[in-house]
């Protein structure tokens, strides 16, 4: 939004909220470098004990990788199906929009345990237990309503006359959509995809039922909970933050470099 500037007060407010949201990072990172058997802040002595425990334990690493795989697959499924549905809902007769949105929304409140059991029965019947694909689909089903909500809210804001204009100018329906409607829709789709990713990445109950033999990261984290909260959990969190920050920085640098080479 060019031409409008954030006031000084709004800027200060923004950074205040950012601090509120990310202060756990400032606590988790030191805790993860502690040497104590328990989560302790501030740590009495520092060391890489819990990072070593994480990296040297193939079970933890495998769990992280599994979680990533499931989350990515489920994000693709949920975002595709959800965006298409969001599109359909926003283009359907006005009278049908409300009921369709409700039909897509209501599932969010069904406690996961019921979904877990239902999918578990299905998996047992099909002998699909310990199947990451089944889990990814189940997670996608849970995440998809959010995708529908986010994208259909965004589509309603987009002016359909532009797409119609493109059609009039001779573009086919797909091309008209791609040129006129898709670009402004992308932020919403990305937001929905991020959302879907974390729904799967954090989900525990359905995973517990479906995964027999291999573990996801939340399963691994919660397995210990009856006995103790292992500081490995802090190390994993710290590592994930560092890795994504580096990945983000790399992507940004690459993008800038690409821009510079493109420039005349």
């Amino acid at each position: 939004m060019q031409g409008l500037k954030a006031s000084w007060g709004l800027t200060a407010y923004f950074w205040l909220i950012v601090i509120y949201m990310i202060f756990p990072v400032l606590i988790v990172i030191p805790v993860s470098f502690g040497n104590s058997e328990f989560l302790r802040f501030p740590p009495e002595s520092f060391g890489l004990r819990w990072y070593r425990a994480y990296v040297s334990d193939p079970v933890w690493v495998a769990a992280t990788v599994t979680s990533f795989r499931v989350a990515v697959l489920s994000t693709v499924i949920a975002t595709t199906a959800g965006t298409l549905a969001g599109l359909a809902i926003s283009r359907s007769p006005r009278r049908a929009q409300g009921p369709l949105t409700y039909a897509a929304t209501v599932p969010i409140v069904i406690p996961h345990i019921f979904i877990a059991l239902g999918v578990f029965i299905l998996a047992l019947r099909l002998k699909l237990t310990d199947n990451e694909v089944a889990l990814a689909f189940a997670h996608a089903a849970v995440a998809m309503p959010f995708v529908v909500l986010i994208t259909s809210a965004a589509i309603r804001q987009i002016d359909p006359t532009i797409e119609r204009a493109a059609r009039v100018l001779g573009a086919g329906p797909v091309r008209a959509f791609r040129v006129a409607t898709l670009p402004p829709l992308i932020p919403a789709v990305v937001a929905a995809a991020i959302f879907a990713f974390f729904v799967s990445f954090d989900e525990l109950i359905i995973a517990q039922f479906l995964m027999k033999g291999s573990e996801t990261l939340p399963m691994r984290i919660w397995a210990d909970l009856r006995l103790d909260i292992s500081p490995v959990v802090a190390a994993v969190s710290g590592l994930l933050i560092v890795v994504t920050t580096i990945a983000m920085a790399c992507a940004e640098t690459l993008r800038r470099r690409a821009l510079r080479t493109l420039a005349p």
Partner: protein
Amino acid sequence: MNYTRFVLHAAIAASLAGPAAAEDKVLTIAGSGGVVKEITEKVFIPAFEEDTGWTTKFIAAESNIMLEVRTMLASGNMLYDAMEVSASNYPIGVQEGLLAPIDYALLDPDNQLPDKAKKEFGVVAAAYSTVLVQRLDKTPEGKKMQSWADFWDVETFPGPRSLNRQPQYTMEFALLADGVAKEDLYDVLGTDEGLDRAFAKLDEIKPYIPVWWTSGAQSVQLLSDGEVFYSSTYNGRVTKLQESGIPAEIVWNGGALHTSYVGIPKNAPNYKEAHDWIRVRTMRPDLEIQYVRQLPYPNFAPGLFDEMSEEVARNMPTYPANAEVQFVAYDEFWAANIDRIRERFDEWLLE
């Protein structure tokens, strides 16, 4: 289940492919995750595989294990051969008919296991206690809690406390604090007056309990952080708490002694071999000693205490001096009464 019918159409496709080729000689065992899983895989599983030539698949199944088993049983596709059965799940498993009886002639032909290790549907795999733990650096100079009555004594022992956010054993602790003898606990608790008496006693301590814990990890963390000075907790992690520099001490007096089991779910595909697993898991003192060094949750493997030093033995819930002052948690009582008492307990907490 109706859902089953809905799924049937999809299932036909799968069944056309024929029954999944039975993987030979793999025993599937379900149990707790985390540390328990690690030690089991390090100690018992290699021994079992060496003894029998079978391989194993160990599945970390957590709180919903009974629901899983019931669902598998209903769908005719039992995935587990043997499973850990927690103290509170045992009576549920028996009531719901989810467990197969143990064949003791097959398991223990020489009758080596003591009677207290043998139940109809499970063999004791671990004994543990819910005990009072105090932080000695927070107790008044020269004083130490000795009993639940001391836990209730907020004059002598000021400071925040915590108890489990469920009525099991918490009610017993209240009655002990009120002077009920441990032999009479369940007789008293079984009557309406006894229940009222326990709640009346809990009323006294309610204002001094800022937090009611919901997992063992939470109670230990609360003690570690100094959020509470005294709490009920499982005996397992107290040694680690001490090693990390927290002067925590167990009060064995008035503790609740529990036993968890290893059992066989009904329709387990490898009933006979499951017994071989149970034998390795419960009757081998040479293996069990390695387990209890990590987790002080011993079973009744014959001759286990002969393998331990006095110092290690004293930390065990089944060490005679410790066992003597505790009461045995009566999980059948709780299985029969939990719904009623839990509702009242939840209401009481909200008041």
